[in-house]
């Protein structure tokens, strides 16, 4: 840290003016919009749920902007490049998880009307204790999800200004977003995130069209890689892949290097690896689809809709907006494999395949236009981690200011005091996220995101699903299922990470955990992708414990279910609030 001056001086050579310029403009516009919207965010409701008056179009773009993180913008292209077909499950399930949200959760949740998920947790079970448990999970998942965003920020800045240390990017981006959130709250960031969605869409699509015009269409890119059933590729292309790159037939076909890794390291034959790879694929699908439907920072957005009908329409538009976006990253991956294979030799991170999107236009097109296009993709990457981080910060800060301070610590505080605390907690959470971001330089972006999804899929998703559709669920059942399911999955994932990380240390003999997993590919698969057993475990616990504690089902459960399911035109919500005045709903 003390050598930052010399580092900056060294860094100043080799900076590309276009790349720096476009990225700087993105950051400056974000700050400017934050200040502008700070003037119009006045009430507590503006801060927590954007005055609950965001139109469908704006809200859909804002949700999409928040959702498309650094993992989506850079990580997926990198994974498709390095793992091939199997990695396409990520964009598909990221997009399709919204369908589950729409079918089972979006409408009821909005009708129930609350500021945050902990509000729902307390309101549904009449239990202040459950609010506390829910708050812990919001913070937990939130911090897990911020780490990869911070890492993306550090790496991208190191690409823009070569030689700049990792921590500078983390601190700079973290500070900008924290300022924005503290100034404008939810209403402030809604507008910013909506604009950032369109910037990302532009940044991922326009350069790709130029590249396709140069190299030929999507189909042609895939024709350059033969499938296992073709002896020679239909079009013979001279491409020399580095030794680290997967072979064509592994790259194009399902059950490739990613899903069959546990079985492969156990030394099984390719034929014997396939059942494990199929299991891995299914578990990954469950984690991603159900995890999307349980991410707290996405769920909190549904409360910004004016009503349940708007909540459904918003989800529809979100699926279209992110679906169109997700068509592009796999295409980038294919382009990267065919035209920039030297990235396979890099280490993980921006120097490796994760940097495809940033580097490919510069290298492939060359000249000023190549730099302009790389500048555009860099701006998109900045928009990606800034918008996701600001959304996370709002949901974590909301949980602290609204649930911990406003409900638990000082229930009698005035709205003005809560708004002041919102700003204080924004700074606290922002600082915490920056500190965590500094610790994760060595981890892969998508792996980190995977943790957050595994926890969300096995804790919040079963809770929300059962609490909206099953009257018999009790607080004890919901809490037990959520805690045991969530933590068991997390523990399983962490054991595989520990086994891998220890093995990387040179000179240390292979640790017992790693050799155990090597002998048991089935256990390794299930530990790396825990959702396929974690979700049933969590649901079973919720049902069994709820049956055992039947007596504690809230007495007005029928009214609660009516509020969740009856059309809003019937006005049951107002009636419910009147009957529960002062009960904390």
């Amino acid at each position, binding site marked *: 840290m003390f050598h930052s001056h010399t580092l900056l001086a060294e860094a100043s050579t080799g900076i590309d003016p276009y790349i720096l310029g476009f990225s700087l403009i993105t950051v400056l516009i974000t700050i400017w919009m934050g200040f502008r919207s700070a003037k119009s965010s006045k009430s507590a409701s503006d801060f927590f749920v954007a005055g609950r008056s965001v139109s469908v179009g704006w809200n859909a773009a804002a949700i999409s902007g928040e959702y498309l993180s650094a993992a989506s913008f850079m990580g997926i292209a990198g994974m498709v490049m390095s793992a091939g*077909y199997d990695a*396409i*499950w990520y*964009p*598909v399930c990221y*997009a*399709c998880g919204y*369908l*589950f949200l*729409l*079918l*089972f959760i979006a*409408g009821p949740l909005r009708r129930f009307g609350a500021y945050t998920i902990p509000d729902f947790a307390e309101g549904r079970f*009449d239990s*202040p204790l459950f609010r506390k448990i829910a708050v812990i999970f919001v913070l937990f998942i939130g911090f897990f999800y911020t780490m990869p965003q911070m890492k993306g920020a550090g790496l991208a800045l190191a690409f823009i200004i070569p030689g700049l240390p990792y921590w500078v990017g983390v601190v700079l981006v973290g500070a900008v977003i924290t300022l924005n959130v503290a100034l404008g709250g939810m209403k402030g960031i809604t507008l910013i995130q909506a604009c950032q969605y369109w910037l990302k869409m532009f940044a991922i699509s326009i350069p790709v069209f130029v590249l396709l015009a140069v190299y030929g*269409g*999507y*189909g042609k*890119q*895939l*024709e350059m890689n033969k*499938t*296992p*059933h073709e002896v020679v590729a*239909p079009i013979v292309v001279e491409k020399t892949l580095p030794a680290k790159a997967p072979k064509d037939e592994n790259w*194009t*076909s*399902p*059950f490739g290097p990613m899903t069959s890794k546990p079985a492969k390291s156990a030394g099984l034959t390719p034929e014997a690896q396939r059942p494990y790879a*199929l299991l891995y*694929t*299914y578990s990954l*699908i469950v984690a991603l*689809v159900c995890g999307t439907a349980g991410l707290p920072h996405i769920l909190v957005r549904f409360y910004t809709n004016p009503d349940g*009908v708007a909540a*459904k329409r918003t*989800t*529809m538009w979100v*699926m*279209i907006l992110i*679906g169109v976006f*997700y*068509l592009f990253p*796999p295409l980038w991956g294919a382009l990267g494999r065919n035209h920039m294979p030297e990235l396979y030799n890099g280490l993980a991170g921006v120097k490796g395949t994760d940097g495809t999107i940033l580097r490919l236009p510069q290298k492939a097109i060359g000249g000023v236009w190549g730099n302009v296009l790389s500048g555009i993709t860099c701006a998109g990457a900045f928009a990606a981690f800034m918008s996701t981080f600001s959304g996370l910060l709002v949901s974590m800060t909301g949980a602290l200011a609204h649930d911990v301070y406003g*409900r*638990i610590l000082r*229930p009698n505080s005035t709205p003005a005091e809560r708004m002041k605390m919102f700003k204080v907690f924004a700074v606290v959470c922002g600082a915490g996220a920056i500190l965590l971001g500094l610790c994760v330089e060595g981890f892969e972006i998508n792996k980190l995101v995977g943790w957050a999804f595994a926890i969300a899929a096995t804790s919040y998703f079963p809770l929300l699903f059962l609490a909206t*559709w099953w009257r018999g669920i009790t607080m004890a059942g919901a809490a037990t299922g959520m805690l045991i399911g969530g933590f068991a999955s997390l523990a399983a994932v962490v054991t595989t990470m520990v086994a891998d990380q220890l093995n990387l240390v040179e000179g240390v003999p292979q640790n017992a955990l790693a050799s155990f997993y090597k002998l048991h590919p089935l256990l390794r698969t299930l530990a790396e992708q825990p959702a396929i057993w974690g979700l049933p475990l969590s649901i079973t616990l919720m049902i069994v414990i709820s049956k055992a504690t039947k007596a504690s089902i809230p007495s007005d459960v029928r009214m609660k*279910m*009516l509020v969740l*399911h*009856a*059309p809003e035109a*019937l006005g*049951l919500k107002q009636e419910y609030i009147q*009957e*529960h005045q*002062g*009960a*904390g709903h």
Partner: protein
Amino acid sequence: MNEPTTKQPPEHHDFIHSEAFLHSLMKRQLKLSIACAAAFTVLLLGVPLMNYFAPAFMAQRVFGFPLSWLVLGVLFFPFVWIISWQFIRRSLRLENDEVREAQSRK
């Protein structure tokens, strides 16, 4: 912390608050959601099965794409949009029916 209300909420005896209305409400909504989820799940879980049991079929080239890639990386998205569009159309119609029914029997 606010104390949970100890007083019992007032009893209602009209149709909107009846067990029968809530039951039909949830049943109809859940039926629609499950039907849509089933259509989605069949494809979602079917693709890996096809890849597993019919690898040669899924590897054939269509417009240069291996079929498995075309289905998952491109066609999957419009398919999900159709399901969600159908769901929203039907669930809005369902809500209107429910409101009409509730108000006519008030």
